[in-house]
């Protein structure tokens, strides 16, 4: 293959985009009631962008579902509502707060709510009879997610059985499931954090403002910068300082840390991410530090 052929080239980003679009179309064709898990975080925003491309000029044929911990960043909720409004999408919200209010769930002693999302998520899937559930999880994020199929079967309890996954050959995705079971679908499986940011820059996708550098009162805990707010207060010995920070991931405010950053645009974030010596979850997520297999345990129970 030494001959120089004048053909249009496909970049790595184009290839990833095409793979994701192919996945969205497979699901639209083979499932009855698909839903996109939409948190207003960058990965779910990129998912929605890709879904829109997959079906243009028609509308996205999927509902959105947000599991609201009650501890969300206000900027993210505002972004979520604006997108739904502008695009005329249907949004279902499952609220952890409702479960705590009527006693179906109890607040954890550490005050974090990421783990509490699983039950409302599974209840919403059952109540709406969603059969395909798109998640923005990427294999590069975390070692249990590195084990995921693109089409990943969940039993009627929403459980993942990582020791007994279906073989997944070529691009022949097998979405067969029995009544009560559902399939989690991960269109961004092969994207890295850097790919996501390069794509956000290339496509000029708007994001909630907290993804870019801003001033915030923060304190340091376990090597993370936590914002002072209603859900996270400094303990004695932890000093509050005004720092210029941004968020690399957006989760529950009680367990999501910020990173020191001066990046005010996607292009500047790309440069920062490329030079980073810490993974995005390692830098910013207290929930993954609970144990050696914290994510695997949550995922087995039906977590994202």
């Amino acid at each position: 293959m030494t001959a120089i052929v004048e053909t249009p080239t496909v970049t790595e980003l184009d290839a990833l985009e095409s793979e994701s679009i192919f996945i969205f179309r497979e699901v639209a064709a083979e499932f009855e009631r698909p839903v996109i898990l939409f948190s207003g975080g960058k990965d779910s925003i990129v998912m929605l962008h890709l879904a829109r491309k997959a079906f243009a000029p028609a509308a996205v044929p999927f509902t959105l579902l947000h599991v609201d911990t009650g501890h969300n960043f206000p900027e993210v909720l505002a972004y979520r509502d604006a997108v739904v409004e502008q695009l005329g999408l249907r949004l279902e919200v499952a609220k952890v707060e409702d479960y705590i209010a009527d006693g179906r769930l109890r607040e954890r002693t550490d005050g974090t709510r990421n783990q509490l999302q699983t039950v409302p998520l599974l209840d919403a899937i059952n109540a709406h009879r969603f059969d395909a559930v798109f998640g923005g999880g990427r294999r590069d994020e975390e070692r249990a997610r590195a084990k995921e199929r693109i089409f990943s079967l969940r039993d009627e309890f929403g459980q993942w059985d990582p020791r007994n996954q279906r073989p997944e050959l070529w691009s022949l995705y097998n979405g067969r499931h029995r009544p009560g079971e559902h399939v989690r679908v991960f269109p961004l499986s092969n994207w890295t954090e850097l790919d996501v940011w390069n794509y956000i820059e290339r496509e000029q996708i708007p994001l909630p403002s907290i993804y870019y550098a801003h001033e915030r009162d923060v304190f340091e805990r376990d090597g993370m910068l936590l914002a002072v707010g209603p859900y996270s207060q400094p303990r004695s010995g932890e000093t509050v300082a005004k720092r210029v920070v941004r968020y690399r991931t957006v989760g529950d405010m009680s367990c999501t840390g910020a990173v020191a950053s001066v990046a005010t645009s996607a292009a500047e974030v790309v440069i920062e991410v490329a030079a980073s010596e810490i993974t995005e979850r390692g830098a910013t997520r207290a929930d993954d530090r609970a144990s050696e297999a914290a994510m695997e345990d949550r995922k087995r129970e039906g977590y994202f």
Partner: protein
Amino acid sequence: MSTLLRLATAGSVDDGKSTLVGRLLHDCKAILADQIAHVKTVSEARGGDFDFALLTDGLRAEREQGITIDVAYRYFATDKRSFILADCPGHVQYTRNTVTGASTADVVIILVDARHGVLEQTRRHLAVAGLLRVPHVVLAVNKIDLVGYDEAVFTKIAKDVGEVADQLGIADLKAIPVSALVGDNVVEHSADTAWYDGPTLLEVLENATGRTDTSNQPLRFPVQYVIRPQTDEYRDYRGYTGTVASGTVTVGDPVIVLPAGRRTSIAGIDRPVVTATSTAVVERPSAIAGEAVTVRLADDIDVARGSVIVAAEHSPGTRRELAATVSWLADRPLTVGARVLIKHTTTTAQAIVTKITGALDLDTLGVIDAAELALNDIGKVQLKIAAPLAADPYSSNAITGSFLLIDAHDGWTLAAGMIDDEEGELL
């Protein structure tokens, strides 16, 4: 063409696959500080040295047993290119997961323990690589330090594997003496193997050609989903979405829509344009293999999911009977008369296994008579299918030449299938 390379590891249990992957990532500086700290903490808690395998063995059960159960995908890049690495299991029980990892690979790295030489699982993995037509196979003769860096040991294993690879039709095989634990010839050349003047593993990976570009082959466009917006702006719009499986689609091209066999031409190819508030399409002149696009046709004919738009001059036609080679992935055996589902491009149809022609004997690499196929067997079958399929031999088109067999009851993926050439050779 993309410089992305997809690679998969294979080899018998305890040959050191996960350690090699960990070493490769580590020496490429693809492991970040928090991941190293994590492995260090866990390794020390277990009272051992830094365990590279912990970088990819992500499941609790894998860490407890020290084996790889399912594929772990890792992403890394050097100055030259990006890599997607599928670290696959070695244990025979989990061969189906190795088939999963290898099915999308451009390169398979097969490890052999220098102390043990070629084992049955080595032969099975070579057969899988040959069957799937993975373009490049790298033989990593691992733990070369444990045989005193003996050139004769390396040469013998390279020769043994070379003979097996020849029989299986593997065209490109490179052998490298490595020690994953110490790092010999993984990223850095080893001073202890002065007799070896070939490339390191990373050098081979950086220079391997990626996926075969099929944009010069005849057009195959399996239709995934039909778009009909029915909005004021796009009232009569009818677009057929799909990913170009091979060839190049160009506006004006004469095409045939299978299975109906109707002739028409490409009226338009659309590219989505999506902004914060608007969703539209603009026309583009052509699209090549691998691109997800939407095409419109000149004539109003019946086109639905499962249709395949093909080059008018190079139609594969359709068939309801197939001779194929299958890798059997289920615990329950395949028997003649079995009723299954076949998933081929965007068509799913009922099928009956009418004949098991034979199974691959891993010792002789010949085909032997077989009444049934058991887990991990590679065999040759004939199928009768309830719907006509627009299929090509796997050797000429990996997308229109491959299929799954699926259990209609529980949905399990039973087999990976590759459609045979007319001559019907096994591999």
